């Protein structure tokens, strides 16, 4: 094991400020913090655990004094390397800042610390008939601070929006040590929308220490349908037609046959093993509306060749269907030493053509590519299975993945829908943005993070290209990634 890399004076300062139990620096202890849910890895010099905003201010000041990079981290479930210390330095883990500070049920707001686990908030307000709408598949582990940094999505963002649509105010610590309050609990804070700018800045502007979010009323009725298809094209055309009928489902997820077989073997959700694709569609709202829309959706599914449309009869059946969907990545992980999940976005009407292209790309490189994604908003998650120990396979996996992303861009889409750019896609940013755009983004980042000490080498491409993709041991991949 490599020796500890931390400066002993810094270690002393950190321990004095936070306590000995709030600083990790021994190489063995740092292992867990070398990676997140992506295929990247890098080792920090230390990991610290603040308990309050003042601690964060102190940590930031020390990082500045020692000129060390600083990276914020929630649960480390991110899929683009956002929480990895790409240039080493101090990882600030928000694991101990995980409290709900305030619940205001009448005004449908909550104030939370960044380390609070996403689903813990929804659980805490369920008895009030409320929930926190953004629901990444990793919601039982991922933190709201991480959601804010990455502007996370999830299956239900089709109707409910992504994280940024639910954040009202932030307290942030800038790399200068300055504590800023952005936005407000009341709507329409005056001035430029700095809250909107901060959400999704992937931890490169500031460290978030306090978050005010909107809570959403739980729908009176929810109908969950499973439509089973003999052809992927029929399934994708159904998705296009549902929205053409003016229905915005709460969720509209698709899995192809290959993925279904992997999932069913693992979760036993009752997915048919002999089909080409399934759609998991949910409509909600007033009882009358949900019933009507469920009937309409079932009608569209059948018109577009669904072999069978099943409706979940109760909450247990619904949960089982969702369990299949949300554990799909874990299921796939059992099949291969390594897998790589893409996060492309395309205009919804391009779904049929895109899936055909993905399949061709898989054939070209000789990979099995599973497809599981948020079909309603055109957010694809092709999964490429490969063995990272084989250098050639690894290179081919990256090449195949790049081809998929280029196709997404060609049809008017984007390189990432919800996983973020991080250290995975910074090199792809020039495919979407001009040098002028990127320079402007760089200068905007410099307003908050002028020395680049906060989460360096993320989001924006560095001038030097990218020869630093690493792969961590296969065992760590299984079941960790989610979308």
């Amino acid at each position, binding site marked *: 094991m490599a020796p500890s890399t931390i400066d002993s004076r810094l270690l002393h300062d950190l321990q004095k400020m936070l306590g000995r139990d709030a600083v990790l620096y021994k190489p063995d202890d740092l292992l867990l913090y070398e990676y997140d849910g992506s295929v990247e890895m890098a080792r920090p010099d230390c990991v610290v655990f603040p308990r309050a905003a003042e601690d964060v201010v102190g940590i930031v000041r020390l990082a500045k004094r020692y000129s060390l990079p600083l990276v914020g981290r929630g649960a480390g479930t991110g899929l683009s390397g956002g929480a990895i210390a790409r240039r080493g330095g101090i990882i600030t883990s928000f694991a101990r800042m995980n409290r709900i500070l305030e619940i*205001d049920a*009448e*005004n449908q707001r909550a104030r939370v610390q960044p380390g609070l686990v996403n689903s813990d908030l929804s659980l805490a307000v369920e008895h009030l008939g409320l929930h926190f709408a953004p629901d990444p598949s990793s919601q039982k582990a991922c933190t709201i601070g991480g959601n804010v940094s990455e*502007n996370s*999505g999830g299956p239900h963002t089709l109707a409910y*929006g*992504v994280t*940024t*649509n639910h954040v009202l105010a932030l307290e942030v610590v800038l790399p200068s040590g300055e504590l*800023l*309050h952005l936005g*407000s*609990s*009341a*709507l*329409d*804070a*005056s*001035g*430029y*929308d*700095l809250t*909107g*700018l901060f959400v*999704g*800045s992937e931890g490169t502007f500031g460290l978030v220490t306090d978050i005010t979010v909107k809570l959403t009323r739980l729908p009176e009725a929810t109908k969950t349908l499973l439509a089973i298809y003999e052809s992927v094209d029929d399934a994708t055309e159904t998705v296009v037609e549902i929205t053409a009928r*003016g*229905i915005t489902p709460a969720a509209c997820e698709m899995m192809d046959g290959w993925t279904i077989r992997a999932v069913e073997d693992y979760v036993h959700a009752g997915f048919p093993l002999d089909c080409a694709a399934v759609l998991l569609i949910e409509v909600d*709202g*007033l*009882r009358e*509306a949900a019933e*009507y829309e469920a009937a309409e959706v079932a009608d569209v599914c059948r018109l577009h060749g669904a072999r069978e449309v099943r409706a979940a009869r109760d909450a247990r059946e619904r949960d089982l269907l969702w369990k299949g969907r949300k554990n799909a990545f874990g299921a796939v992980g059992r099949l291969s030493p390594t897998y790589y999940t893409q996060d492309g*976005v395309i*205009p*919804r009407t391009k779904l049929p053509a895109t899936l055909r292209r993905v399949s061709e790309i898989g054939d070209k490189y000789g990979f099995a590519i599973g497809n599981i994604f948020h079909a309603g*908003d*055109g957010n694809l998650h092709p999964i490429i299975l490969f063995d990272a120990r084989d250098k050639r396979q690894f290179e081919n996996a990256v090449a195949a993945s790049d081809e998929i992303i280029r196709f997404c861009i060609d049809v*008017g*889409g*984007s390189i*990432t*829908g*919800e*996983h*973020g*750019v991080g250290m995975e*896609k910074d090199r792809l*940013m020039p495919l*979407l*943005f001009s040098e*002028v*755009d990127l320079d*402007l*983004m760089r*200068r*905007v980042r*410099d*307003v908050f993070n002028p020395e680049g000490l906060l989460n360096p080498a993320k*989001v924006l491409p560095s001038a030097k290209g990218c020869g630093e993709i690493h792969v961590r041991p296969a065992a760590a991949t299984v079941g960790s990634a989610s979308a």
Partner: protein
Amino acid sequence: MSTASGSLSARVAQIAGAQNVISDAAGLSAYQIGGKTPSAAIRPESTEHVAEIVRFAVTEKLAIVPCGARTKLDMGAAPRQYDLALDLTRLDRVVAYDPGDMTLSVEPGIPLHRIESTLAEHRQFLPLVVPFMNRATAGGTIASGVDSPLRQFYGTARDYVLGIEFVTGDGASAKSGGRVVKNVSGYDLHKLMIGALGTLGVLTRINFRTFPLPAATRAIVATFGDAARAVDLRHAVAGSPLRPLALEIVSPRAVELLGRDGLASNGDWLAVASFAGTAKALERCVRDIRQMAEQIGATAFTISEDEPSLAAPDRTSEFVPAALASSAAATILKLSVVPTRITAMLDAAAKTADVAQMHWAAVARGVGILYFALLPNERNDDTLARVERATNEIFGRCAALDGNATIPWCPAEWKSALPIWGPERGDLGPMRALKKVFDPHGVLSPGRFMGGI
């Protein structure tokens, strides 16, 4: 006309074409902001022209104010310097509309009503029902940041603007976001453009997410003897499964100002709500809200079964124009509080206005946004002093309620005396720094924004 401005119009004519430059006094008076008149107004026909004009302004140290149909130039402060009006009404194309993807890309000068008719062909729409709806452009609506009653259900522009292309103060074309409904690539610079009054960039293209036009809608009007009860209906609905498209509380004088069929006042407060859905769902919505209204003590309850025109919001969204037209010195405060404090805020503002012996009218959106109009009969120093006292008191109360307060509209000559941007914010420093990034030479609408930005 001075020689200097004469040569200025000649030079901008070289960029944009003489037929696209206005330099006569009569023509330019339409571009006045706060009594300031530009030396020329230019109507560029392409994004390239916009960029060239901005670069020209940088070289010549000129100040530009972009505009559309000019219905909201009275918002914000007057520019410190104002040489060129950049009239974007000729950049008015639909660049792309993909009904299946439910995305729309437009140039800024396109009128909202033209977007409305384009989308209606595919039974879609944009939930932007804003003041001066019959003239407002997409660009002006986004740049001014005005909101729509439909925000109750659909949120605000920040929730459905997918990307923006703009020309920076350097004269460079830039963009952020994209044209897909879900996208986290790069920083959301476009969120900064919403409500920035043209201080960060000249908008050249706006990408929207569109929405299915509801098959049917119903508007209901419940009448109450006081504000508190009308607001209570809002609270009852918020605690129910109903999800109205819009829900607003209208003060007695606002009802008179809006003065249309179905909104009769007699000193009463109205709660106005609209719903969308199937016949069965609408029946349920109306039945439920009627029951809530009656329990709270509504003295009347009417249902309008208009065709799907989102009837109620159409009316209340014209509150601002109606209030401005009704008074010699209308001063319209925008107050935002969390919903449970709407009544307290309304009461405090109303009492203050009554003590100041000033007419007032108010529309409160159920989400906690209040437009409170002070409507004095005269426009003089004495009135200003009374308005100043009243706004200071109301702002103080708003701050105590943890709210936000600004004055989007008031007489131009009062702007410097009144706290139009509300109390100074702690994040003004980064805002100033961002202005420098987007507009390092200060050519874009200088001084129009908060803190003299």
